[in-house]
């Protein structure tokens, strides 16, 4: 009988204790962060989407080689000796046209391994983490600052320069061969009986 009344008392009393607790919480400040409107401060060393500052990139391909998942693809074209590409912010001279600098964030594993080897510190992690897409192709970000026409131009420039060089080489070689031929002919005329000396 004592237990019975004790149960009633305990039941009612504990309900009121619980109600007091919940009532207090009715007026405590909520901990909700209204996400798209209010964002939490991200930690200092967070690793999110990469960014490449193309003004500083020298196209050395170090980051692409460091990448464990091969998500960075870089193509470069040598600049002409007459062209001045400027300097990077830490004073390095640029020598290559970076015609393609693509990072596929669908593949990227956010390991930050590409950031360390960069000699000009132009590839780094940003605090952007909201970049979902409906199509996977859209996650393949292109960072190059050159327009397709410019890329074509640089490529053709380089090809022309190469061709010129090759032509020069060929001409030089032809001239040399011609010279050698003439020399040979002259030699043959003067000393036809001493071919061993020529070999030496």
């Amino acid at each position, binding site marked *: 009988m004592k237990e019975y009344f004790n*149960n*009633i008392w305990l*039941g*009612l009393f504990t*309900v009121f204790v*619980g*109600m007091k*607790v*919940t*009532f207090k*919480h*009715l*007026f*405590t*400040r*909520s*901990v*909700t962060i*209204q996400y798209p409107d209010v964002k939490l401060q991200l930690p200092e060393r967070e690793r999110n989407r990469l960014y490449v500052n193309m003004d500083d990139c020298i196209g050395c391909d170090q980051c692409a080689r460091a990448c464990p998942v091969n998500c960075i693809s870089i193509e470069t074209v040598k600049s002409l000796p007459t062209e001045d590409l400027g300097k990077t912010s830490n004073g390095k001279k640029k020598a290559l046209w970076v015609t393609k600098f693509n990072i596929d964030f669908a593949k990227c594993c956010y390991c930050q391994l590409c950031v360390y080897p960069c000699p000009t510190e132009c590839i780094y992690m940003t605090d952007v983490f909201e970049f979902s897409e409906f199509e996977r192709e859209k996650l393949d970000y292109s960072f190059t600052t050159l327009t397709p026409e410019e890329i074509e131009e640089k490529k053709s420039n380089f090809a022309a320069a190469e061709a010129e060089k090759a032509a020069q080489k060929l001409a030089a070689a032809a001239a040399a061969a011609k010279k050698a031929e003439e020399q040979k002919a002259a030699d043959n005329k003067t000393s036809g009986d001493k071919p061993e000396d020529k070999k030496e």
Partner: protein
Amino acid sequence: MIYDFLLKLTGSEIAAGFIQSLLPLFVFILPFALFAVLLERKVSAHMQDRLGPMRTGYHGILQTVADIIKLVQKEDIVPTNSDKPLFNIAPVLVFTGSYAAFAAIPFSSAFIGSNIDLGLFFIVAVSGLVVAGILMAGWASNNKYTLLGAMRSAAQVISYEIPTMLVILTIVMMTGTLNLTTLSELQTGYFWNWMILGGPVAGLVKLAFIPSMFIGFVIIYISTLAEVNRTPFDIPEAESELVSGYHTEYSGMKFAMFFLAEYANMFAVSAIVAAVFFGGYQSPIGYLGNTLDILWLIPIEQFFWFTFKGVFFVFVQMWLRWTLPRLRVDQLMALCWKYLIPIAFVNLLIVGLITVL
């Protein structure tokens, strides 16, 4: 009063009665359901230190409107192997049960749907229709969870009707009336005339009544909470064990009807508690209309007080929901049969003795 006014306005008894019977639905139940769903979500959120709906309108005030629009647009799915006629009737029956209870609830001295002498009895009796509807829904869905929920609901509601009735009987013994308007008129004046504080009698008898009245109030509040299947007595729709109980298979507007019925029921039982113990539509502190001598203001004030009391008890129901964990089936039955019913009986005897003496 409203009926006479409508009769004069339309000149037809049928039209007047029809409009009067629709008034609580459109003026009260639907806006109340809209408000109560939002209140529920906000109260539950803030009790858990969250914010609740924030993005539809200012602080999410249009959330329930958006919900309703969504529910109206939804496809009405009827399971292939269900008992289709019963499946379709069940939500209507449940809603009818809870809507019919509003017929006898006195919103103010000027408006009561039907001023019948058996008001309290009518409300308790017609609420039984809800059980039939729930059992029908659970059984017709042909799903083990719904059937389990429906069986639990039937067991629970039927056993908890006993303490409710016993407490109401206590009040009837004191006042000698089942008419809710008369009951409210008895408790007129100031708050010390309320039943919870011993009723309109004066002297030592009033003091003797107070403990019994408090016990009666606690019992009727607990048992009505169980009757409307609210936490901690929500085992019929226990979402962590039975998906959502008897309305698992319902979608769209039929689900909305269950929802509406649940909230209408919540208010109906709160209204009974308010009408029986807390003076019904009577103001606790006198009327502004009386002091200013504007007589038409009084019914409006009464409506305000009645709604305020009802909504307050609905709020307490929500408050309890986020305080207490759900009871097991055996605990539920033990609470009813071992605690509430014996205490209600003893209470009935004590009040009877005091009344006789």
